[in-house]
């Protein structure tokens, strides 16, 4: 027996990237722009989408809801008459802590792509793993809530660097916290100088119009990028 060295020279996530591209082609074919929305658990992604559904006009919104288990978030959005598809990672995906391109691919047949202009993929709540896996999206945004503290961009730069938009949520709780908003903004800036940010309260509606305006611009920018 002897040993042979085989050159591989391949990104370990190439397989995921290939499937992500196939997803993207399917979405493009149906004229659907896709936003990958990520955050830590409990940052307020679903509440933000509830407010979004109430105010977004002229763009037909759909949601692919990723969770380890349960359909609580999907039920909340269905109550707002948003076409929503639940994707649970415990069903054949080992209870993964993030969505990957293959999981999203498995859900595509269930998505009513012809009835949607903008699909938001609400990723599994997790500030680390989802940042590694593209799923076929046009844009990536994250929610960070003021209760998480100002140091999160420094602890989880991979996520903050992966997103072009950082939504800072739960602004209504600021009076109860010692959070230094300027410090949080400076920390976001140092890890991702190119990120946009918005200060919102999904609970009171503060800043939601600006978020909806940004979200509504995703399809046009996606069309421009793929043209």
């Amino acid at each position: 027996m002897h040993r042979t060295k085989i050159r591989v020279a391949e990104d370990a996530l190439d397989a995921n990237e290939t499937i992500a591209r196939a997803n993207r082609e399917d979405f493009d074919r149906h004229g659907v722009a896709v936003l990958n929305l990520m955050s830590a658990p409990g940052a307020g992604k679903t509440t933000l989408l509830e407010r979004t559904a109430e105010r977004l006009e002229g763009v037909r919104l759909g949601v692919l809801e990723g969770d380890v288990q349960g359909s609580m978030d999907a039920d909340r959005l269905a109550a707002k008459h948003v076409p929503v598809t639940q994707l649970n990672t415990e069903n054949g995906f080992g209870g993964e802590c993030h969505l990957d391109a293959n999981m999203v691919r498995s859900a595509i047949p269930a998505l009513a792509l012809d009835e949607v202009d903008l699909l938001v993929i609400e990723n599994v709540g997790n500030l680390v793993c989802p940042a590694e896996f593209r799923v076929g999206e046009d844009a990536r945004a994250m929610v960070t809530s003021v209760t998480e503290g100002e140091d999160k961009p420094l602890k989880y730069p991979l996520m903050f660097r992966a997103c072009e938009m950082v939504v800072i949520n739960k602004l209504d709780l600021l009076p109860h916290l010692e959070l230094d908003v300027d410090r949080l903004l400076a920390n976001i800036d140092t890890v991702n100088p190119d990120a946009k940010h918005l200060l919102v309260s999904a609970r009171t509606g503060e800043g939601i119009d600006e978020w909806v305006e940004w979200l509504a611009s995703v399809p046009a920018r996606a069309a421009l990028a793929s043209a």
Partner: protein
Amino acid sequence: MHELSISQAIVDTAVRHAGGRKVSRVDVRLGALRQVVPDSLRFYFEIVGRDTVCDGSDLELELIDALLRCDCGREWDPAPVATLDGPLIPSFRCPDCGAGGAETLAGDELRVESIEVEETAASHA
């Protein structure tokens, strides 16, 4: 915690290239910007590799420092540096001109460079 997913991706890549032969070593280039903890990656790699041709193989990691380049020409490593008031602050903004949008020259590698497989008499037949 993403080390589990990443180790799975490394094992899958190695298995795909091994052609059924037993893998004795996997060489991976790992960039600092991937925020992967090497010991954690090795731990999961050993577990994920069980019941595959990678069972018992060595994971050799070549750690790559990050290097960014600004349009103004400045190149720098954004590795966190200690500040007077404590926290470690990395800087992705150009230290010279203050611009964002730096190009990543190195540090985002997560690349399986090569594998070493065991050739038995049977695999030559």
